[in-house]
């Protein structure tokens, strides 16, 4: 089994990353802040004004370490990619399936079933653990609506457009009761509906940021197994959009990202002072809060679970990689169907 490698986050403004032997060296204010061997790093994420030497970029590309550049506020800007790796036959098969509406719909259907089931698990867990604090009836009804949607998705004849319709409905059902999942700091963290670019409240700000981190991991995982992260089945091609990464991310949104955001708020690890609103209405978080979120995300990735399909113990951080590998095996024809990740 592949080892869960660490991700290096650089948030210090003005920091410079360079290659020293086989290590990544981070300099800031004229001194070396950190030196880490490249073998222990799976990815590097730079926030804002962070420089990176071309030799390091080349070395990372060679070693299969992905580098992403984000704005200070976590918006994705660019990534560094080395020579295209992996199996060309696999990628061609991916393109063929993506061109075929029925095949695409079938894969998209599996992913959506998992996503909705995972969303439902998030709701059900709330009902189980905090039944006294929430409007049980509303949440329960939402959970039932999600169950109904899963049943509708059993139909193999559905077209992609219908699938997208069902996804939209379930997303609004789920986010419609999401505010109920916030059980602490109620007056400061109010969730109305999902919004982005820019996020207009603190909860959306947290969600968007964690989704970006998840996106970086998912895209890197797809590249490792040799799939093209840009060509998706549910998400259609669009320049600059990583369709397949977005597809596979759907399964993890509720389980990894939404739960993380909720526990940050509910356990009071973040508070309203860590956010600021711009004139445009956009809400941003400060450096301290961003660090808290990154630490929490990294720690969550260290947790282990038994993978429902592989029956093997994996860290949460390896889940994107495991799912990317399963997708590659499915496309290659090694397994009959793509087994999405369903949290039990």
């Amino acid at each position, binding site marked *: 089994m592949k080892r869960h490698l660490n991700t290096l986050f650089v948030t210090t403004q003005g920091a410079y990353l360079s290659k020293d032997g*086989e290590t990544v060296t981070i300099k800031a204010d004229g001194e070396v802040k950190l030196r880490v061997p490249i073998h222990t790093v799976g990815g590097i994420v730079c926030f804002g004004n962070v420089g990176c030497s071309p030799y390091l970029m080349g070395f990372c590309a060679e070693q299969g370490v992905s580098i992403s550049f984000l704005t200070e506020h976590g918006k994705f800007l660019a990534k560094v990619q080395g020579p295209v790796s992996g199996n060309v036959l696999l990628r061609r098969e991916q393109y063929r399936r993506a061109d075929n509406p029925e095949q695409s719909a079938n894969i998209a259907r599996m992913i959506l079933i998992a996503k909705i089931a995972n969303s439902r698990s998030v709701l059900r867990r709330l009902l189980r653990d905090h039944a006294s604090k929430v409007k049980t009836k509303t949440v329960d009804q939402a959970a039932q609506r999600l169950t109904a949607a899963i049943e509708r998705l059993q139909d193999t004849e559905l077209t992609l457009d219908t699938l997208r319709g069902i996804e939209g409905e379930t997303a609004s059902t789920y986010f419609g009761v999401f505010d109920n999942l916030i059980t602490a700091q109620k007056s400061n963290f109010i969730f109305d509906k999902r919004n982005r670019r820019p996020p207009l409240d603190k909860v959306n700000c947290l969600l968007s940021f964690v989704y970006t981190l998840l996106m970086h991991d998912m895209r890197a995982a797809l590249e490792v197994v040799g799939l093209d992260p840009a060509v998706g089945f549910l998400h259609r091609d669009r320049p600059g959009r990583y369709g397949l990464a977005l597809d596979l991310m759907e399964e993890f949104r509720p389980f990894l990202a939404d739960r993380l955001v909720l526990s940050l708020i509910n356990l009071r690890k973040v508070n309203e002072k860590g956010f600021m609103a711009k004139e445009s209405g956009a809400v941003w978080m400060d450096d301290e809060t961003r660090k808290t979120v*990154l630490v929490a995300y*990294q720690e969550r990735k260290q947790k282990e679970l038994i993978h429902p399909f592989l029956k093997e113990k994996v860290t949460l951080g390896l889940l994107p990689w495991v799912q990317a590998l399963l997708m590659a095996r499915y496309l290659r024809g090694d397994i009959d169907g793509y087994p999405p990740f369903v949290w039990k």
Partner: protein
Amino acid sequence: MFVVVSYDVASDERSGQRRLRRVARACQNFGQRVQYSVFECIVDPAQWVLLKERLISEIDPKKDSLRFYYLGSNWHRRVEHVGTKKPIEQDGPLII
């Protein structure tokens, strides 16, 4: 797995200083310096073979010594640090 590498390289001659530098460089590529001649490396078995071979080929067995301590994969509770220069946790969140 977690391996502690410590070394003693006779550095009174020019050639010794060169060996010392090269041993330190090899260790740095795989682990973290925790004291002057002590490195903590988190490596998989394949990487360990590489590192070990490289280290052994750098030293002069007549003058220098290397010691390896294998702490396995369940090492967290076997390591304790007291005093200054606390090293970073290599598998913890790396945020700079």
